[in-house]
């Protein structure tokens, strides 16, 4: 690229940066905390209930996760999880309900292209990277721990 064009580009990019709306971080953080917090309170209630019903803590935790995934999926299917995300931002993306949303939203979206080549192949299009790097980082952390504590 010729230097004149490059200077012009840089000047414009600087201008755009100066005039871009600045996000109100505190407001976003507050809403993320409130909405994300509310989802977590719901999760805690579930855990309390399942602790009474299940025999072990692990079983209660598993049941809670399943219940929260179910709720996230239903809220997505009924079409209001994305509206909640518009307010709550990361507060709706981080809890496991957000993970359920990514799978169900993609499944709904690509259902029209068929059960197998549409829904089946595109269901994890958003959730895929979370799974891949979640499993990979889990493996690496476990490997480091194993090496440090001398399990080999």
């Amino acid at each position, binding site marked *: 690229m010729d230097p004149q064009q490059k200077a*012009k*580009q*840089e000047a*414009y*990019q600087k*201008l*755009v940066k100066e*005039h*871009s*709306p600045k*996000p109100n971080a505190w407001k*976003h953080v507050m809403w993320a905390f409130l909405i994300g917090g509310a989802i977590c309170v719901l999760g805690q209630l579930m855990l309390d209930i399942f602790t009474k019903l299940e025999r072990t803590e692990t079983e209660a935790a598993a049941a809670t996760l399943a219940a929260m995934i179910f709720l996230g999926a239903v809220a*997505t*299917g009924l*079409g209001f*999880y*994305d509206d*909640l*995300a*518009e307010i709550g*931002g*990361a507060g*709706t*993306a981080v809890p496991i309900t*957000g993970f359920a*949303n*990514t799978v*169900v*939203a*993609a499944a*709904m*979206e*690509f259902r*029209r292209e068929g059960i197998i080549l549409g829904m089946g192949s595109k269901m994890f299009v*958003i959730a895929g990277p979370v799974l891949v790097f979640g499993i990979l980082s889990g493996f690496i952390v476990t490997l480091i721990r194993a090496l440090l504590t001398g399990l080999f």
Partner: protein
Amino acid sequence: MAEKRIGQQTIILSNPPRIISHHCTVGPMEGRGPLAKYFDDILDDDLLGQTTPEKAELAILEQTINKTLNKKSLFVQDIQFYIAGDLLNQIISANFSARSIDTSFLGIYSACSTFTQGVGLGAILIDGGYADKVLSATSSHYQTAERQFRYPIELNVKRKPTNQHTVTGAGAVVLASDGDGPKITSVTFGKVIDLGIKDVNDMGSAMAPAAIDTLTQHLKDTGRTVGDYDLILTGDLSRQGKKMFTILAKDAGLSLGEKHQDAGVMIYSPQQPVGAGGSGCACSAVVTIGYVFKEMVQGKYSRVLIIATGALTNALTFQQGESIPGIAHAIVIEV
């Protein structure tokens, strides 16, 4: 030297074609916006009873075309060229719509500036004596554009303040060598301008330099000033792009003031959850056909410069870190 050209990029139509029939259709969201009373048709259901959004966009386009023809009792046999384009891969809505229009078809793409490109090309075909009547149409749909360019509809993504909302709707016009209606007097096809903006959440800033380039070139070619126009309407710069456009205009020595409006800003109210405003091929089309033409008939405007703007990106190039080139095509409409 081609005798119908002036300056570097402008074409003067010495036998200005008339827009003898026009129609615009919008979705429910646009129907709740401030321009609602200007639109010919407002849909209750943005899927129009279809099973997929792609089918819905096609149905909206076909319905708009039929109504445009029926308004003046025109038949497809009267039309020599059908020019259309949209945002989807392989301009599929336009291509599919041409199945039922039994005439020469030209499919075009320049993203959201397709409307003025189509009308401009149609006007040139008529002025040159290659056709008596040309049909030009464009469409866009929020759901089809979202799934092609962004994320699934129900996904938990928070909209950035500079994001734009694709207008659901379609607009069609019939241009003719004689008849009644507003006339197209000149056309300035723009150049591709890329100032290296890579943020797909801010298409307005990416397109503003192209819009200013086309505007300044048009004024230079024609020897006119901003004052010669009653309205300069940009396509879909939105609030952010309009801000950048105003700054760039000032740098170019133009004071636009109230003369400049942006279709993407006008179509929604600030209270609607649309980020910085509207976008899409239908944005400039429905605002021009709905608002501008009707206000021209009312006598509010007599000479208007429409500069539709397009962001020439696709879903792969931005992931590969490419920038977003912009383009802007201008047409002058007079009564």
